């Protein structure tokens, strides 16, 4: 693959020391696989729970599996189990690679992984046992909070160390995003735990704190980590520079500056002072600045020299460019639907679930998949066992995501329109949105199929790698 070198840097500099690079990856191989395997297991669990909750809208009963329990557990496990574990792994790999960081304390990271997943298991079981509260993504018993925070620091503090210790003076956008995300989340998590669960603020201030926390989690931690991966893999795999890269620092700062203000837009019409709501609206709109710049960076890079078709033909980039498009869509949708007129229609409907899925699945999870297809073969030294499963994984998840998100958005909008008319009885609105229940069952099955395909492939590869020196392809 050719790459044009316009920077005027001398060509033919010594390529990175080969033995050092290998040591970098050798050091983090253990923790990476530990995180990654946990992530995939949680993804499967969450997919099964998603299926149960889709069935539930059609009539499954019982005390342990109330809709409230299943959807809360599914949500928490998808975010804290799948996305967090996966980004612990990817962020660690990314910053180690970029900063030539040798992880000497791999056991600490593994300890973090174990604590994180044990605490998460306890939290999820507690939800089913009925020990939950009403704040989404803080539903687990409050005692889990500090444990998760400690585990997060053990697991995700290393990118910051890697950044501080990098041997050259240079730095890259991916590093900023990972460092920022790793720094912001524990802060926001602990403050939210304090203000919402341990020492609850007065009345609706809890709701304000919660909405602020949710945006810190979803946008800054998940979004920031995923953006880091996109910034890395696009030039890496395409072998070209990022278009308009000089804007990336503006994207970074506007991203972190405005994301924290967007939360209260999700409380429009709620019993909080209007100025708090309006600040959220302004924040969501200002956030567009960073969305536009990342769009220039990503789509610009992909649009030159038949980048899109190259991306389509690379497994990694096929997932990642899909994620990049999803992020742009999310930003625009989020800004548009934080305005009172639109928001009043879709508030309390399935629309916001669709919006969140656009961010957490179509963007973040797709980026994770893409990254996994790149990183895992390097770390395991083996190949993806089955190309067919890769195809199955891509199409099942892509169609599932597209269908599930557009169904949530469309049904949300439609039932919102009906609800806005007080003459339409509530029962009729429910009947009209019953189609969503059937659709979500189909998409839940699609997701499960795609994830099982991914898991089979990934576990097959990891298992194969533990047997020494297996040569050649398998399928």
């Amino acid at each position: 693959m050719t790459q044009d070198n316009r920077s005027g840097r001398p060509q033919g500099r010594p390529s990175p020391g080969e033995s050092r690079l290998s040591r970098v990856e050798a050091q983090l191989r253990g923790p990476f696989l530990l995180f990654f395997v946990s992530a995939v297991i949680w993804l499967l669990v969450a997919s099964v729970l998603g299926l149960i909750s889709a069935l539930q809208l059609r009539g499954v009963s019982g005390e342990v599996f109330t809709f409230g329990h299943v959807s809360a557990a599914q949500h928490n496990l998808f975010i804290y189990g799948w996305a967090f574990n996966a980004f612990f792994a990817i962020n660690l790999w990314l910053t180690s690679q970029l900063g030539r960081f040798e992880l000497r304390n791999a056991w600490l990271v593994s300890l973090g992984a174990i604590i994180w997943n044990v605490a998460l298991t306890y939290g999820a079981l507690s939800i089913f046992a009925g020990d939950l509260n009403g704040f989404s993504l803080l539903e687990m018993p409050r005692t889990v909070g500090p444990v998760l925070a400690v585990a997060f620091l053990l697991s995700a503090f290393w990118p910051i160390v890697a950044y501080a210790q990098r041997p050259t003076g240079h730095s890259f956008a991916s590093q900023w995003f990972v460092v920022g995300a790793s720094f912001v989340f524990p802060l926001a998590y602990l403050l939210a735990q304090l203000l919402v669960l341990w020492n609850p603020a007065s009345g609706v201030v809890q709701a304000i704190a919660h909405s602020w926390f949710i945006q810190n989690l979803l946008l800054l931690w998940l979004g920031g980590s995923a953006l880091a991966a996109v910034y890395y893999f696009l030039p890496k795999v395409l072998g070209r520079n990022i278009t308009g890269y000089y804007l990336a620092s503006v994207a970074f700062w506007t991203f972190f500056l405005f994301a924290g203000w967007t939360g209260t837009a999700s409380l429009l019409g709620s019993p909080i002072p209007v100025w708090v709501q309006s600040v959220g609206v302004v924040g969501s709109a200002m956030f567009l600045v960073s969305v536009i710049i990342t769009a220039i960076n990503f789509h610009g890079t992909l649009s030159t020299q038949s980048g899109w078709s190259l991306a389509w033909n690379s497994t990694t980039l096929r997932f990642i460019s899909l994620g990049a498009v999803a992020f742009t869509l999310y930003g625009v949708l989020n800004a548009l639907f934080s305005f009172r007129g639109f928001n009043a229609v879709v508030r309390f409907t399935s629309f916001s679930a669709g919006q969140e899925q656009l961010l957490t699945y179509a963007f973040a999870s797709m980026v994770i998949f893409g990254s996994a297809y790149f990183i895992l073969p390097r770390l395991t030294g083996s190949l993806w066992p089955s190309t067919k499963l890769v195809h199955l994984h891509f199409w099942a998840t892509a169609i599932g995501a597209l269908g599930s998100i557009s169904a949530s958005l469309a049904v949300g909008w439609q039932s919102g329109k009906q609800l806005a008319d007080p003459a339409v009885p509530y029962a009729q609105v429910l009947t009209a949105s019953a189609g969503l229940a059937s659709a979500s069952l189909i998409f839940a099955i699609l997701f499960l199929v795609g994830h099982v395909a991914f898991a089979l492939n990934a576990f097959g590869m990891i298992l194969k790698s533990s047997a020494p020196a297996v040569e050649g392809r398998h399928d």
Partner: protein
Amino acid sequence: MNDSNRYPDNNRNRRGPSGAGSDGLSDGRLVEVHSQLARDKEEPVQGFSLTPIFIVFLFCGFGFWAGLYLTRNSGQFSAGVFDLDAPKLATSGGPAVFEPDAAKGEKLFIINCAVCHQATGLGLAGAFPPLAGSPWVGGNGERMIKAILAGLGGEIEVKGAKYNGVMPNVGAGLSNAQIANIASYVRQAWGNTAEPIMDTKVAEVRKALADRKSPYTAAELLKENPLEAK
């Protein structure tokens, strides 16, 4: 296109570290090149670009709009504004003038008085005196308001029957308007035909009783406000 082209990652043997440089950019170069790009701002071959100016304008535009939006939609950053349309409604009113409201009065009566005097206003024979047809609730209302505010105890004769109980100062926890509503209701329900009572009247009596600690006795109350001749 065959599979090996469709999935290059899949087929390139990347077992060793050599894989790092084999695709696109090596990590070292990736960082270095982009670091340089960030410093040079614009790639020189492109010459003049509109992008940075576009971003600056975008920023200014958003900033201007944000200021405008917040000024218009923040409710003066007050803690008490929850509805953007509400301030308009509030300013259209003017100072509220009290109007006796029979419905409110009845509701308050049920809650505060009906336990003893009963919803029928007939009281309970031998225990609680009736209000229906009772001369005690007639007149200019002072007698009645005093009893509500301060309480009334000891022997009392109503409509020919003797009662000996204690009425607590139920009015102490109620507002002037609430008491006025209750009193107005009692004075016009069950065939009673006295004038309604205004909240200012209650305020007057409340002020006069400010120092009073003990409930009235019937004799004391009659001395201050004798029953009106029929």
